[in-house]
């Protein structure tokens, strides 16, 4: 196997077999696979340590937590698996999860040395609720779906036991944030997988670690040969995203301060301070969150004598979160997806990120060595002191 080469691996089942080989050869102690309850839309991440338990072949372009899930790969590893500090784990991660891993490793919440990241070429995330409604309208039983793949920019094909069914992508089916994301293929992983054509998967060796892992297992039965070309569909989606993104920012830049404030106030004053966005955020990691101590905030506001403190508090809540997160937001869009009142906070974060990039040239989640212009110097100093 050679570095930076792409190989054909056949169906998605072979990727599961590859994971099994990793487990058997003791390259990793556990694999973060997934578990399903009823339909393939109810996926949940699950840690598997015994190779015989790895039976559910559910991998699809979308089936990898790409339906709106609260527990992202990065969040699951940090919260439930103790940041992989003591054991080696193989995970399949979307590009935004990989960015989250990078951000978390900067603040020592996960140990990247112990994680074998298998990145996936991401064809955008689907809104589960809208999808199920659309499927029901078409008269398709969601329990009978066994596979799915995006076949073009406008269409997704669903594989049923009886044949294929093609669904058009209409507004709301794909999350807005994903149609603004230009980083759909990550080169910071160890291995990359992707679907090129229906159930034709490839594996790409990205890092030395990935090469070492794949070289030490016998993959002759799985890998058939070198695959040429790039993922044209995802590249096309990236182009569209970039255009969308630029158009959005242009619109916001053209606004005056007053108009922008009105937009911000109108969208964010609906906030109910439920902290969903904090819990779901893959890079929000404080164990003792300032924003979830309600009594403290109430008292502070009353004492400070702010009139109408209840409403004011919401804005302060948002602003505090923004102040904490703005330099580490990886644009996964989860905060917009989970918000019960539908505040598109990711849009604002995206705009702030763009400004930070223009001013400091820093992009969160791009590299382990790049430190944030705000807290990076302090973190570096701390680490140097720790290492002495």
């Amino acid at each position, binding site marked *: 196997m050679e570095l930076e080469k792409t190989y054909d691996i056949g169906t998605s089942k072979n990727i599961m077999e590859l994971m099994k080989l990793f487990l058997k050869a003791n390259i990793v102690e556990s694999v973060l696979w997934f578990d399903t309850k009823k339909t393939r839309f109810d996926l949940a991440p699950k840690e598997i340590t015994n190779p015989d338990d790895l039976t559910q072949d559910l991998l699809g372009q979308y089936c990898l937590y790409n339906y709106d899930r609260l527990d992202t790969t990065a969040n699951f590893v940090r919260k439930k698996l103790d940041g992989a500090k003591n054991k080696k784990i193989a995970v399949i991660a979307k590009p935004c999860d990989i960015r989250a891993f990078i951000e978390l490793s900067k603040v020592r919440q996960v140990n990247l040395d112990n994680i074998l990241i298998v990145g996936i070429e991401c064809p955008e995330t689907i809104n589960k609720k809208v999808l199920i409604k659309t499927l029901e309208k078409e008269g398709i039983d969601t329990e009978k779906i066994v596979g799915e793949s995006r076949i073009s920019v406008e269409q997704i094909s669903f594989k049923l036991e009886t044949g294929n069914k093609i669904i058009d992508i209409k507004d709301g089916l794909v999350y807005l944030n994903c149609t603004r994301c230009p980083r759909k293929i990550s080169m910071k992983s160890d291995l990359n997988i992707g679907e090129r054509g229906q159930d034709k998967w490839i594996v790409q060796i990205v890092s030395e670690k990935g090469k070492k892992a794949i070289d030490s297992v016998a993959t002759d039965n799985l890998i058939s040969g070198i695959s040429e070309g790039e993922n044209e569909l995802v590249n096309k989606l990236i182009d569209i995203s970039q255009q969308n993104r630029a158009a959005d920012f242009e619109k916001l830049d053209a*606004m005056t*301060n007053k108009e922008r404030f009105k*937009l911000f106030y109108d969208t964010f004053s609906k906030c109910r301070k439920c902290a969903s966005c904090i819990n779901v955020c893959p890079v929000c990691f404080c164990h003792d969150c300032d924003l979830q101590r309600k009594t403290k905030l109430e008292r502070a506001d009353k004492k400070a004598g702010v009139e109408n403190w209840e409403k*004011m508090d919401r804005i302060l809540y948002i602003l505090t979160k*923004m*102040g904490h997160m*703005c330099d580490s937001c990886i644009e996964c869009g989860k905060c917009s997806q989970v918000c019960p009142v539908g505040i598109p906070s990711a849009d604002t974060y995206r705009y*702030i990120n763009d*400004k930070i990039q223009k001013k400091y040239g820093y992009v969160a989640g791009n590299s382990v060595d790049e430190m944030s212009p705000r807290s990076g110097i302090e973190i570096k100093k701390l680490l140097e002191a720790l290492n002495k």
Partner: protein
Amino acid sequence: MVQIILESIGISPERVIMDHCSSAEGAKIAEIARKMTAKLKELGPSPLKISESE
């Protein structure tokens, strides 16, 4: 960084400044405070406050 956030949500970034002076520079602190209050008076009440009272 704070100024970037404020600008993105439409509050004029001049409302926040960051400066440093030592404990021996009393006059400088007073000067900065005077400048800042003058600027704030010029800018008027914050849009947050205006929206609350409406």
